[in-house]
């Protein structure tokens, strides 16, 4: 299956096409989604297909004592699979192989999968679920970071630590000794659900040749491919993974689909029939991965003018019951924990702790939102303690070209921390609003004391807060080298260029951007470029669609492929190519005379990038993107509710290949950041997620979304295609710190835990009123 662009009338002249890069061309997948023609995994049906359901643990930790199948239930036509049916390893292969596909004896988190049932009728499958009774003997569980650190109950080794990193630079003790002021704070943040519109879903088939085909909603076809090889003990060529149209991911379809594909495939393997498992929202929220909660202690030393001389960060994240993605989430969080600031003496310690909760996984930002939120909240506190304008404090310390990060990485180019701060502040009217809100709040306070109230009798206060963030594009350290990505470009039989990559469209615009970059280099219009469906039988392994890497890394490979293809065709034609029609003429002639044309490019590490995995020193990322956010809020003193009035943000992403899609990423990521900071709270009861419904897991609605004023800054990175860096995650990293600062400005309450729910804020405000 090839995704073809929708036909639009195009003049039949051979005018040289307009530039393709930097233009907001129609989104390649837009029309089929808007018109409802796009088929998601739940829209697909196969003859003889069964519907799978998952029997899960109700307790957080325990021992399975008995599994009972209700004898009164009609089990005809029900397929049942448990761990004994797994032909290969009972594991979900990620970085480590500690997570079982199905529980054997030990239960390590609530909603852990124990066995699978399937039936041709989804209603019978659902009923069968209710006819299985699993008796689990409950044992003491570890349910929080604090409990895990205390290690009274040990669930991992002697100390419950899943992974630890230490990063050091300079002389910390000397730095603190040198400081005029030392400020310390502890900052907490909770779980967050990705809440893609389309729930996780997968269909698996066992092939006549004894192989497996799975289709489904996913970000990383080759992760699934790898995991299935381990589970089924099959060689790579017997496994085929095909991405179906995917309704959002945000990291929630990075690691989890490997598990779900294993479940569907196991049922298909056992029954010999296609099996579909599609979660409903209740199951998806209860069982799938979340953002890691974190407790981050930050201690910094400053000169009186705010200059940072020492930074000591201790970040602890809740990894959940298994290792899964925690080491890499933690690593990225640690590498960004110092913020986009220059500091000669730094110590960063980061630990991921085991708890008896469902494994936390990838989520937009991947550890960075947690540590950047902590650092930015902290900087606002420092500004208050030093009596400095938060903008001035940040400008004084923000990194510039030539500065060195905590891992010793010299920032050689494309460093825009100061520029994004300045442009955000200027556009938001920072200085003026800071003064004005302060004045108005004081006036409101006086008026209310005199019995004069705003219309509607409300007691409202406004504030503005600022934050700065950074995000390294691509895999951390040697990650890209290990991925060893391969992307290709070939010619379709009709003489059109065709992108072959495993990177997926999940709504973010990846395939549109690929067509633009290829088109630009081939001198054709993006419409001419085809994109192959990510299918492991058809596309090479260009790596996962994660880590803000797709445009920069894979787009870069495709751009090189396009250059090479053009060279080949021009050599063949013995002249320059000239637009769409000419390209197709030459391409068809090439196919006829020379046969197929396929150009491949593999990732090459730029020579100047050096990373030492042992010492955690060197170039953690090829480059960073930078963003600043100003958030204006209105807090209601009677209810503790905080409304975001306006967000202004400038983000340097190198080059906007498709400006509108970039704005979309920035708006969406910012709103997700606002939700995390103010509304979204996963609530737990006896180790299970209590609010696993959209009614009670509160995300912002369209009317909660404030006006978002987005400024794209383009400070090109020489190693990225057309200068592009990453944009996908940065917008999620920055807003929370700005929200905390804005709430502090509005109400005087400095909230050290997010989300700032109305309950938390009102408690803090009441505490202050009582102290008066």
């Amino acid at each position: 299956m090839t995704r073809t662009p929708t036909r639009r009338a195009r003049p039949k002249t051979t005018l040289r096409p307009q530039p393709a890069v930097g233009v907001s061309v129609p989104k390649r997948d837009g029309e089929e989604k808007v018109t409802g023609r796009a088929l998601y995994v739940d829209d697909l049906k196969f003859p003889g297909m069964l519907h799978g359901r998952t029997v899960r643990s109700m307790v957080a930790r325990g021992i399975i004592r008995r599994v009972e199948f209700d004898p009164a239930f009609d089990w005809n036509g029900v397929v049942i699979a448990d761990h004994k049916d797994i032909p290969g390893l009972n594991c979900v292969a990620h970085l480590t192989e500690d997570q079982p596909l199905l529980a054997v004896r030990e239960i390590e988190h609530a909603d852990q999968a124990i066995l699978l049932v399937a039936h041709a009728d989804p209603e019978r499958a659902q009923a069968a679920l209710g006819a299985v009774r699993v008796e689990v003997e409950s044992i003491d569980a570890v349910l929080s970071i604090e409990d895990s650190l205390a290690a009274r109950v040990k669930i991992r080794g002697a100390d419950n630590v899943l992974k630890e990193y230490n990063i050091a630079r300079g002389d910390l003790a000397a730095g603190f000794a040198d400081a005029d002021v030392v400020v310390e704070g502890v900052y907490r943040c909770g779980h967050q659900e990705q809440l893609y519109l389309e729930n996780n879903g997968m269909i698996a088939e066992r092939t006549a040749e004894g192989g497996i085909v799975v289709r489904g909603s996913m970000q990383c076809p080759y992760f699934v491919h790898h995991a299935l090889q381990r589970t089924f003990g099959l060689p790579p060529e017997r496994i085929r993974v095909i991405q179906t149209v995917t309704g959002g991911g945000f990291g929630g379809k990075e690691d989890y689909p490997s598990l779900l594909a294993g479940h569907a495939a196991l049922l298909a393997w056992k029954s010999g029939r296609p099996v579909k498992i599609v979660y409903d929202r209740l199951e998806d929220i209860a069982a799938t991965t979340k953002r890691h909660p974190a407790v981050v202690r930050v201690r910094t030393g400053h000169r009186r003018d705010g200059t940072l001389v020492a930074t000591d960060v201790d970040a602890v994240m809740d990894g959940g019951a298994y290792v899964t993605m925690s080491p890499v989430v933690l690593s990225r969080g640690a590498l960004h924990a110092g913020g986009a600031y220059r500091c000669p003496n730094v110590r960063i310690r980061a630990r991921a702790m085991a708890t008896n909760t469902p494994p936390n996984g990838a989520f937009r930002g991947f550890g960075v939102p947690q540590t950047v939120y902590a650092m930015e909240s902290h900087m606002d506190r420092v500004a208050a303690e030093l009596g400095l304008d938060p903008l001035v404090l940040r400008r004084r310390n923000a990194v510039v070209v030539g500065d060195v990060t905590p891992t010793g990485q010299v920032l050689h180019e494309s460093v825009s921390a100061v520029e994004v701060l300045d442009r955000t502040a200027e556009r938001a009217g920072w200085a003026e609003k800071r003064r004005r809100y302060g004045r108005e709040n004081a006036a409101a306070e006086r008026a209310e004391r005199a019995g004069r109230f705003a219309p509607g009798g409300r007691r409202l206060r406004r504030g503005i807060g600022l934050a700065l963030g950074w995000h390294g594009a691509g895999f951390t350290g040697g990650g890209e080298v290990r991925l060893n990505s391969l992307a290709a470009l070939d010619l379709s039989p009709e003489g059109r260029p065709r992108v072959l990559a495993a990177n997926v469209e999940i709504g973010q615009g990846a395939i549109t951007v690929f067509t633009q970059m290829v088109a630009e280099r081939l001198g054709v219009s993006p419409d001419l470029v085809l994109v192959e469906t990510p299918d492991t039988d058809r596309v090479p392994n260009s790596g996962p669609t994660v880590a803000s890497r797709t445009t920069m890394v894979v787009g870069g490979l495709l751009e090189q492929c396009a250059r090479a293809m053009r060279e080949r065709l021009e050599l063949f034609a013995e002249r320059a190519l000239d637009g769409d029609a000419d390209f197709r003429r030459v391409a068809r002639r090439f196919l006829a005379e020379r046969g197929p044309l396929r150009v491949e490019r593999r990732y090459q590490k730029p020579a100047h990038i050096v990373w030492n995995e042992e010492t955690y020193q060197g170039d953690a990322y090829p480059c960073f993107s930078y963003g600043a956010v100003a958030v204006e809020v209105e807090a209601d003193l009677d209810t503790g509710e905080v409304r975001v009035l306006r967000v202004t943000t400038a983000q340097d992403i190198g080059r906007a290949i498709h400006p509108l899609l970039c704005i979309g990423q920035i708006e969406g990521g910012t709103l997700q950041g606002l939700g995390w900071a103010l509304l979204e709270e996963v609530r737990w009861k006896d180790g299970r997620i209590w609010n696993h419904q959209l009614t009670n897991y509160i995300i912002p609605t369209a009317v909660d979304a404030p006006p978002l004023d987005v400024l794209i800054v383009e400070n090109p990175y020489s190693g990225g295609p057309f200068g592009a860096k990453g944009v996908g995650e940065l917008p999620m990293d920055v807003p929370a710190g700005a929200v905390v600062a804005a709430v502090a400005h509005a109400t005087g309450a400095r909230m050290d835990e997010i989300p700032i729910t109305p309950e938390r804020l009102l408690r803090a405000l009441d505490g202050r009123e009582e102290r008066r």
Partner: protein
Amino acid sequence: MRAALSTLEVARPRDLAHALKLLHASLDAGRLVPLAGGTDLFVTLNSGLVPGRRFLDLWSLRELRGVRDQAGRLVLGALTTFSEIREHALVRRRYPALAAAAAEIGAWQVQNRGTLGGNIANASPAGDSLPVLLALEAVVHARSVRGTREVPFTALFRGYRDLALEPDELITAVSLPDPDAPPPLRAGAARRGAHPPRAQQFFRQVGTRRAQSISKVALAGLLRLGRDGRVDLARVALGSVAPVTLRAGRAERVLLGARPSAAVAAAARAALLEDIAPIDDIRSDREYRRRVSGNLLEQFLRVADPRFARR
């Protein structure tokens, strides 16, 4: 959808009489569950809780539709949707608190489909129209094969989700007195001045986000000052702070007959805490609800009369 929809049946009655007959007849063999807009019922079905296997579709019953002004009482058919209420000119003029509540329920899609009768019969302590109907002293019109009955809203909720209706009764309508109608003349008392002052109406629900939010606290109020400057009508009703939507009788009694002052407001606030019994639950906690209930009462009082906030 966790409920097995294919196992469910839906009866489509011809008219109200037919519906009542079907409902009555069903009592012996599994009661037919009345189905209005379905916005509550489908949520339960989706989560796999099956309120019944057989449903009685009310949607086409014309007898349950329409909004009429009958001799100063407004009669709203049970199937009146919140969109209709939100946009109804007379509702907006005479019952602004009800219009405000209608506009806060879910969002437009739910307001287009969700009905007043369904909100009442669902009997959730968080139902947003309920405090307003309680404060307006609405009357619920119920009907069964045995005939019609009127149940004052104040007597409607017997306990958590326990409605003072028979299983074969349908809600047909809700009627509202005009809060600003002049009181009936007492013998001998001459009416002074043509227009008595209007009662101030208030509604606010607190639910964290600005749409699609189930109330953590909702407060509806009615307050009128007499010519002598004393409160001569005080009604305060709250949702989500007890097993049922309730009138804050103690707080009302503090207000009634009092002259507005900050001290009276403080006393009413203290009394309110005796009226309500909020709990910690999935949406919020007891402390927050107590605090916010008091804050909303104060906000209501200062909107109704600024003197409540001054010395």
